[in-house]
């Protein structure tokens, strides 16, 4: 393993372990306050966990276990951090900000500036080179901060929401730059955007409440999510329960029948989940009898446009929230409004069932 970490920090209810192989990029996804930034701060050496250890390529970054108190200072770690706030040095010009990493690594002034200009050009900010950070807009500062982190050429790159505040042209541009840069580099990237995970990460890690709740290759996690958060990212409805003959039985007693991998035979009683897209859900006013076996009474919580459809969100008691996408015409016909009790009907052919 090229990078390994295991750390816990009581004060923030944080306990994670993580490892990366060479050239691997991992995306960290999770709700606000899940501990994503905390994880990066621990790796970068800005926050000292209560216990744990980390190593890059055999070199120990810190080891606070078993009586040892080894703790490398941030500058010895080779882990450049792009923090959630841009934090450009206010007294240095944009180009000197970006040249800071190379200069700290010992590059002569002229060479460092040249490197800096190259990176500024990459993020389409070369024209800002001579400005002071106070003269930048939010998105401009963000781009410069990305360039500064990249220019440090670290062994492990830590990026905390690098696309925040970027306009719709800059974001794809930066995504392409990162794709190229991260190809032969270890990197951990925190993001709220699935597109980043798809495009940049080999693997995603979903964190909630300071714990890793799910991890795996990007496509696998997003196509077969096991956590509600990942399902939300993938735009899928997710219900959990125990596996039965037909599908999943929720704690509320609802049964979600569905399909499973042909080469997998479910063990009844095992914990499992059922996932299905909102587009596979139809909405009915009365009781229904038809081919779809999955029919559930729910209460509409709200309606909102979603592309050219209407997304109907509804509460299914303790089983959580389900969404259905229907046409505006259908919504109008049915006279849907928040608070109404309706039935959601799901074609079992479109429900995937797999172990949790």
């Amino acid at each position: 393993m090229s990078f390994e970490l295991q750390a816990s920090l009581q004060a923030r209810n944080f306990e994670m372990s993580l490892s990366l192989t060479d050239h691997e990029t991992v995306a960290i996804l999770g709700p606000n306050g899940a501990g994503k930034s905390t994880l990066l701060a621990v790796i970068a050496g800005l926050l000292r966990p209560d216990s744990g250890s980390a190593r890059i390529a055999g070199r120990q970054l810190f080891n606070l276990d078993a009586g040892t108190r080894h703790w490398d200072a941030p500058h010895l770690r080779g882990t450049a951090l792009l923090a959630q706030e841009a934090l450009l040095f206010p007294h240095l010009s944009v180009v000197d900000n970006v040249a800071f990493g190379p200069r700290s690594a010992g590059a002569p002034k002229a060479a460092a500036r040249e490197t800096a200009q190259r990176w500024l050009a990459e993020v389409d900010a070369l024209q800002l080179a001579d400005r002071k950070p106070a003269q930048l807009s939010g998105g401009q500062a963000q781009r410069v901060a990305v360039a500064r982190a990249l220019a440090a050429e670290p062994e492990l790159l830590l990026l905390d929401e690098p696309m925040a505040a970027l306009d719709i042209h800059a974001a794809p541009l930066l995504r392409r730059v990162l794709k190229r840069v991260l190809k032969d580099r270890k990197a951990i990237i925190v993001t709220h955007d699935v597109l980043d995970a798809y495009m940049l990460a080999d693997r995603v890690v979903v964190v909630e409440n300071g714990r890793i709740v799910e991890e795996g290759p990007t496509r696998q996690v997003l196509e077969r999510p096991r956590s509600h958060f990942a399902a939300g990212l993938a735009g899928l409805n997710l219900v959990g329960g125990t596996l039965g003959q037909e599908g999943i039985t929720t704690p509320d007693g609802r049964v979600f029948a569905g399909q499973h991998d042909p080469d997998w035979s479910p063990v009844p009683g095992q914990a499992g989940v059922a996932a299905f897209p909102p587009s596979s859900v139809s909405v009915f006013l009365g009781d229904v009898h038809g081919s779809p076996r999955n029919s559930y009474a729910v209460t509409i919580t709200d309606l909102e446009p979603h592309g050219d459809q209407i997304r109907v969100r509804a509460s299914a008691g303790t089983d959580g929230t389900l969404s259905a996408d229907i046409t505006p015409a259908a919504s109008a016909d049915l006279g849907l409004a928040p608070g109404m009790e309706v039935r959601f009907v799901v074609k079992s052919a479109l429900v995937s069932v797999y172990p949790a």
Partner: protein
Amino acid sequence: MKTTTGYHGVPRWIYAVAAAGGLLVVLPLAAMLLRVNWPQFIPLITSESSLAALGLSLRTSAASTVLCIVLGVPLALVLARGEFPGQKLLRSFVLLPLVLPPVVGGIALLYTFGRQGLLGKSLEAAGIQIAFSTTAVVLAQTFVALPFLVVSLEGALRSAGNRYEAVAATLGAKPTTVLRRVTLPLVLPGLASGAVLSFARSLGEFGATLTFAGSLEGVTRTLPLEIYLQRETDADAAVALSLVLVAVAVAVVGLSYGGRRRTPAAVQS
């Protein structure tokens, strides 16, 4: 929080130089302690005149610190945030008592508030006599201590910037509300250290008091004046009395800085 903050980043060699700096201050104090005539110490510092002087010093220093805060906070605000012609000049002037030999400062105060001074004549007509009174001591101390508060606080105000004040204003807060609920709480550490410095300077004030207020036991003879007089007869007695001053100062400084929190730590990315 302290224990979980991993980054300090003070280079090692800095500690060595700092130790040298610390020694420059600590050694003379140690040398003084070594010379104190301990058997005589207690009777000396509990003598009536010493106690009177100590009490007067504490009272006047407290009063002048309050006065420094009342006058100095607005001055610092105006210097840090305002924009008006003559601002630089005002800043230079406010700093002058720092450089003026205190005795000369005392003379200047006499020229102003004395019986024949600029304001003194009108004051006397109004029945107010300042010279030779405890008021004069407070005035002299305020004069020399004011720059300390202004400089500390102006620095703190400038470093803090006015971003939070601007946000508060857009939320509808009137300037006075902004001052009370945002500006002052944010610069509280700077205000506290400014006040401590002012108090310390007031406590140690000698020259201006002597010149402007005179030296009468219980009325105008503060501890430094008492020390100066004692020295005429017995240098050791003066040193012993100085230790009392030092002890008071350590207590005040320790109390006000001790309770002070560290600034909230680090980026956490």
